[in-house]
């Protein structure tokens, strides 16, 4: 099987020669050690050297405010959307908005102005055709809506002023649907899957009640999934944390793969997920990044991959339990993950 056949079989939970495996997106500070370990010079070479079944492609986005689509909105109105010192609950520009008219001052970016179609084509064309070409769409409308008000204000608005929350969320979803359409049109026939997501879980449970997730997040998720499916793309849906209680809702809107299995979060044990949902959806992740990959030995990592392969003979993409591999993960443990995942038993 090549990478693409292996991925599609995993998505359909059909037999695979060995599991598909995804490196994820190593943090920029984690990259130098990985490059050195594998004797490569850049991320492109690293993806090939590790034997990744996936090739992630980021959407090119260049506006006066941002150079990444996940930072497209200037919620802080200071022209500095990537500020590293800003906390995740910092107040956004809609902090004091109470009426829909209070949102009028904001200049919503037009994705058509800032996504270069030729650059989309170049990036997609540069991806090896035998890999699963994965568009990193994110389209994190829940997280963006939280940032637009400030996270705490946004979550309180869900209870106290849901109309204003939904008005902003709708604008953001429209932005992403338009942006994604540009990318999908540019990619026609050359893209296999996309990653879309919103962080909804904490270590110990959902951040919002399942009812609130269903009201405020799932409808947007449905639109984004349907759009991707209309282009023949498989959808990997990302949320950090403990999200077991809303996996049935993700399945309900057509998500193909749930990412990640954050192995140490409550209710996210691989065996339990397989028993509850293994015949309805596939998964990605499972190799814990909160302890095992950081503190374990390569042998420990291999043992975990063997265990995951036993639980999921198919239906699981072996991957770190968070896509952003941090610099405290020894590269030898990443190699161990791929070595064991790539063995054909």
């Amino acid at each position, binding site marked *: 099987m090549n990478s693409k056949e292996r991925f599609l079989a995993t998505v359909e939970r059909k037999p695979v020669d060995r599991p598909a495996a995804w490196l994820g997106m190593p943090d920029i500070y984690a990259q130098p050690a990985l490059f050195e370990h594998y004797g490569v010079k850049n991320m492109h070479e690293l993806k090939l050297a590790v034997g990744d079944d996936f090739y992630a492609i980021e959407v090119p986005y260049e506006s006066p405010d941002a150079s990444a689509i996940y930072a497209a909105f200037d919620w802080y109105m200071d022209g500095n959307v990537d500020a*590293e010192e*800003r*906390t*995740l*609950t910092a107040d956004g520009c809609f902090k004091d908005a109470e009426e829909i008219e209070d949102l009028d001052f904001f200049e919503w970016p037009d994705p058509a102005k800032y996504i270069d179609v030729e650059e989309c084509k170049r990036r997609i064309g540069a991806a090896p055709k035998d890999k699963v070409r994965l568009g990193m769409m994110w389209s994190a409308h829940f997280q963006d809506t939280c940032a637009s008000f400030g996270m*705490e204000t946004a979550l*309180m608005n869900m209870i106290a002023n849901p109309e204003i929350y939904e008005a902003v969320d709708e604008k953001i979803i429209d932005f992403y649907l338009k942006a994604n359409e540009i990318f999908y049109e540019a990619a026609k026939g050359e893209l296999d899957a996309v990653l879309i997501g919103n962080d909804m879980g904490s270590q110990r*449970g959902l951040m919002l009640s399942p009812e609130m997730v269903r009201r405020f997040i799932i409808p947007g998720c449905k639109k984004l999934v349907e759009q991707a499916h209309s282009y023949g793309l498989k959808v990997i849906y990302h949320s950090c944390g403990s999200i077991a209680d809303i996996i049935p809702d993700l399945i309900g809107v057509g998500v193909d793969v749930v990412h990640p299995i954050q192995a140490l979060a409550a209710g996210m044990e691989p065996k339990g997920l397989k028993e509850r949902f293994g015949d309805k959806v596939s998964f990605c992740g499972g190799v814990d990044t*909160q302890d095992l990959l950081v503190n374990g030995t390569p042998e420990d990592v291999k043992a975990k991959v063997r265990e995951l392969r036993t639980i999921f003979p198919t239906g699981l993409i072996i991957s770190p339990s968070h896509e952003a591999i941090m610099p405290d993960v020894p590269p030898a443990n990443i190699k161990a993950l791929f070595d064991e995942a790539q063995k054909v038993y």
Partner: protein
Amino acid sequence: MGLIQEISEYLQKGRAKNVKALVQQALDENLDPKEILNDGLLSAMMIVGTKFKNNEVFVPEVLVAARAMNAGLSVLEPKLVEVGNEPVGKAVIGTVQGDLHDIGKNLVVMMLKGAGFEIYDLGVDVDPAVYIDKAEEVGADIICMSALLTTTMPKMQDCIENLKERGLRDKYIVMIGGAPVNDSFCEQVGADYYTPDAATCAEVAKKVVLEKRAAG
């Protein structure tokens, strides 16, 4: 329904304006400010905390309840000062150096306030020495540290080592939390308590401060 009970019910629903008005009414009717605080505001926040711990309510419900508690406290605090109400204890809290994740830390702040603590919130990206400097300055009982990232967790140990170097380790109760933190890490770095959620943190904090005080 009595006025105190009404305050509690509205707080649990996160109705800040109602809580503020009812606290004012209670004061106007000469109810004991300490009773309004303990039986109206704080006990209600503790109920919300217990429900949060049990996944019966979630972050938004806790946030609106805390906002309602703060609205009530804004009216009540001048009266509490007048009657010489003492907090359960004082806690210095922050997210460790290199880490900007603060929603969990903020929830702990709300729960500790709900348990009757006076809080000194140092925010995020806090230098290990700054926790100690602040604790010394305000006469704190507890130092609370939060981290979401495996790469920033070691800063908790730096703070504890710094406490030892300054001969202050036994003076403070050190509590830690955050997604990757667990009991074995707590033991490894020599912290006093790891708690898995904000409500449990507040419960443990109150218990151990009162025990320490009783032991003299």
